[in-house]
């Protein structure tokens, strides 16, 4: 029982990191129909900014997170304006080509300016302590990540289902020409959604740095994982992405505990099974 609980809480923490990073990609893919393979690159940029802010500027963890999110969004604005707007509505493969190109550029530039070494984001004292949760000790940071994930899920759900922006966003996605005619400024809606997606990537990149360490190749290393998680959840669905992250996190963690030698087999076999059972992902929109 202790073991099961222990595995479950590890799985939850890992799943939540995936969720925070992937939900932004799920939004861009499901709502804006852009296969943004450079999503991880933005998470990585945020990690570098946070690392710089915390280690070199000596700022606190919260300030570093804030700076990383705003900084990454600021960097993404000209990219959205000059690159992404050209590929809204293009074929998926064209989008793949461009966003992979962008990823290569980001990696190359990061390698040049930041060097190829690992960068860490020092945690505040409170988060770096192991906490005794009764059946085992767990890093406080993991609990923090779980809380962040839950907050993101609830916040996004509220934003999309309960605010006027959410209504405009959903309308734009369903029928952008009609929304335009009704006076919704779809360009603005797209730009804001893109910024939100990037901001979430940034948050995930920073709080997830303990799991997925920040280095230049980050952007490509985890690209597949992100893409798989989003598709399994169903692009554009918040609860879908959440379920996918938790299920895949659980499969991955349990598989690695029970049969570590075959850890990857479990993960990808589960992906094949899920996709065959739910061809649109857990909660995907009908196509």
């Amino acid at each position, binding site marked *: 029982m202790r*073991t099961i609980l*222990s*595995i479950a809480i*590890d799985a939850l*923490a*890992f799943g939540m990191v995936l969720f925070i990073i992937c939900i932004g990609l799920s939004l861009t893919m499901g709502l804006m129909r852009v296969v943004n393979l450079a999503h991880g690159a933005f998470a990585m940029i945020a990690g570098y900014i946070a690392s710089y802010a915390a280690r070199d500027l000596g700022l606190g963890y919260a300030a570093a997170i804030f700076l990383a999110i705003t900084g990454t969004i600021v960097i993404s604005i000209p990219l959205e304006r000059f690159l992404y707007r050209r590929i809204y509505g293009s074929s998926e493969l064209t989008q793949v080509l461009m966003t992979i190109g962008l990823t290569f550029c980001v990696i*190359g530039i990061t*390698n040049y300016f930041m*060097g*190829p*070494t*690992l*960068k*860490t984001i020092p945690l505040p004292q409170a988060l770096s302590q*192991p906490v005794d949760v009764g059946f*085992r*000790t*767990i*890093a406080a940071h*993991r609990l923090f990540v779980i809380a962040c994930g839950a907050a993101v899920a609830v916040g996004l759900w509220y934003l999309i289902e309960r605010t006027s922006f959410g209504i405009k966003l959903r309308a734009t996605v369903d029928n952008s020409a009609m929304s335009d005619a009704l006076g919704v400024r779809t360009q603005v809606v797209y730009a804001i959604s893109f910024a939100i997606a990037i901001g979430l990537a940034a948050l995930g990149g920073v709080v997830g740095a*303990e*799991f*997925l*360490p920040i*280095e*230049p*190749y*980050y952007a*490509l*290393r*985890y690209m597949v994982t992100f893409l798989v998680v989003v598709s399994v959840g169903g692009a554009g669905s918040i609860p879908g992405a959440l379920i996918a992250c938790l299920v895949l996190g659980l499969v*991955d*963690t*349990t598989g*690695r*505990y029970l049969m*570590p*030698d075959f*850890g*990857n087999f479990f993960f990808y076999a589960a992906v094949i099974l899920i996709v065959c059972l739910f061809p649109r992902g857990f909660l995907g929109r009908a196509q």
Partner: protein
Amino acid sequence: MTAGKKILGAAVGAVLMGSGSAYADTIKVGIIGPFSGPFALQGKNFQAGVEAYRALNGKSVKGHDVEIIYRDLPAANPAQSRALAQELVVKEKVQYLGGVYFTPDAMAITPLLSQANTPLVIFNAATSAIMNTSPLVVRTSFTTAQTTNPLGKIAFDEGVRKAITVVSDYGPGVDAENAFKKAFEAAGGEVVESVRMPMNTTDFSPIMQRVRDSGATGLFAFLPSGPPTLGFVKAFNETGLKRAGTKFYAPGDLTQESDLPALGEAAEGLKTSFHYSVAHDSPENKRFVEAAVKAIGSADQLSFPAVGAYDGMHVIYKMIEATDGKQDAQKAVDAVKGLSWTSPRGPVRIEPETRHITQNIYLREVAKNADGKYINKEIQTFPDQKDPGLATQ
């Protein structure tokens, strides 16, 4: 005066060139390494080692200018490796090949060597078997078995009777697992469980849970240097294994100096065995580190591949000296068999039979130096270690 000297030199040069190309010629050396991509740091270290050697020992040997040509091979890719080697030999007319980070890449090059009449000096690729694929291969790095071997006895001597091995599931990982098992069991211990985890593992908590369940009091781990080592060490600490007193042993790949600033406090006290620590205390190493840091640009980035490259260049220079600039791979290789010198890592020797490097292996502990920087502090020396993988063959 200087101008006159220059003109004179040029004139003499021209005469010599006319009379025969044996003198003021350029000898090209092709270096293949991961200069971009996920292993770019290791490639940078190759370059730093090479440049440091040239800075300290000059850019020519016996009047032969030595030119270095770098070629990028970002990840293990034998087909590309062969294409690059072929291009270097046929098109760039290099007389020596060096570098190579991954085993399969080396395996793709060795079949070409005798036809190319070119020796290959391996700066890293650490599988024993490479040496058997061609008589023209010399290696100045290490093998995983070589660096792992002493750990078995160390663990036993520190009171560990039951150990668990956790390695990345690929060639060197398996080598390390076997080497530790053999040495530890020879010393009288028992390996209760062996775990091989996929290369792309990022969350190590479940593995640590398994370590805890196994009841072992010692953990032997092998992970290639890079991002996952950070997660591994942190997971070891956070799951309370460290506090519970589990002893942790690993070859030095785990605490590569370039990872130490990131690992920091988490790795403090960690004991690893390796052939080289940047903190090695000797005049040779001081000279090397100074030059290599200058070449690489930042002290934080310097680590073991640089010393492999540095000594590799030493071997290549000796080969050039022995052949006097003529392309004769067999003669070049024969000339360095049995060669011994004092490397930045300590005394080393090219074993005549295996052409692999024999060297000291050090037990090191992660500790803070006087400047508050984390280093691999050498605490015990195992002199004159051969590669056990090749020795048994």
